[in-house]
């Protein structure tokens, strides 16, 4: 018996992914993770099948754990220079 996540649970997962994405020290990985989360949620927003929704939600939770681990790993190899995209324009 699979149970589809509630709307609040889905939004909470999305928020957690964005919060985790924000912690990456490297601009490119930070932005990629944010984009990847937003794209995946948009792509799956119209899923009707309960099993498909539950599977996508479980996948998202798994990827959140991956992202959390990678934040730690990447923090050990933080880039020494900032990306040009992060610099404030005069």
């Amino acid at each position, binding site marked *: 018996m699979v149970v589809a996540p509630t709307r609040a649970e889905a939004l909470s997962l*999305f928020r957690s992914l964005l919060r985790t994405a924000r912690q990456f020290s490297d601009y490119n990985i930070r932005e990629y993770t944010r984009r990847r989360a937003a794209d995946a949620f948009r792509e799956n927003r119209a899923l009707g099948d309960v099993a498909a929704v539950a599977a996508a939600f479980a996948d998202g939770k798994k990827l959140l754990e991956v992202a959390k681990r990678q934040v730690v790993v990447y923090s050990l190899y933080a880039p020494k220079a900032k990306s040009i995209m992060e610099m404030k324009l005069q």
Partner: protein
Amino acid sequence: MAAAAALRPAILRRIRLSPSPAAAAGAAAASQPNALARWLARPMSSHDAHLTRDEVVDRLLDVLKCHPKVDPSKVSPEAHFEKDLGLDSLDTVEVVMAIEEEFKLEIPDQEADKIDSLPLAIEYVANHPMAA
């Protein structure tokens, strides 16, 4: 004994230890005449740069206008994210995250779920003691 007890507060009242920040400021004042004035003029609260409501409104409008899915001409202080700006629930989550970043806040999920319009966002940020 009674005399010593009477003497004690009198002596304590006379003794003055200069606190070190004042001494440092005094030393700095010798080289820079304005330093002492600046040190004396600084506010005593750590929240010296508390935001005014106008500033909050301005910065929130900027955050909204910079969001890629928002039409800048539709942004007003009364706008509702979904009804007026045409955002969906996922966009709203992203907008609230952008607001968090702008004001260096951490908005808990339960609060963030409630923020669905600019008036509510303004209210939340303006009343938040840590907003910077």
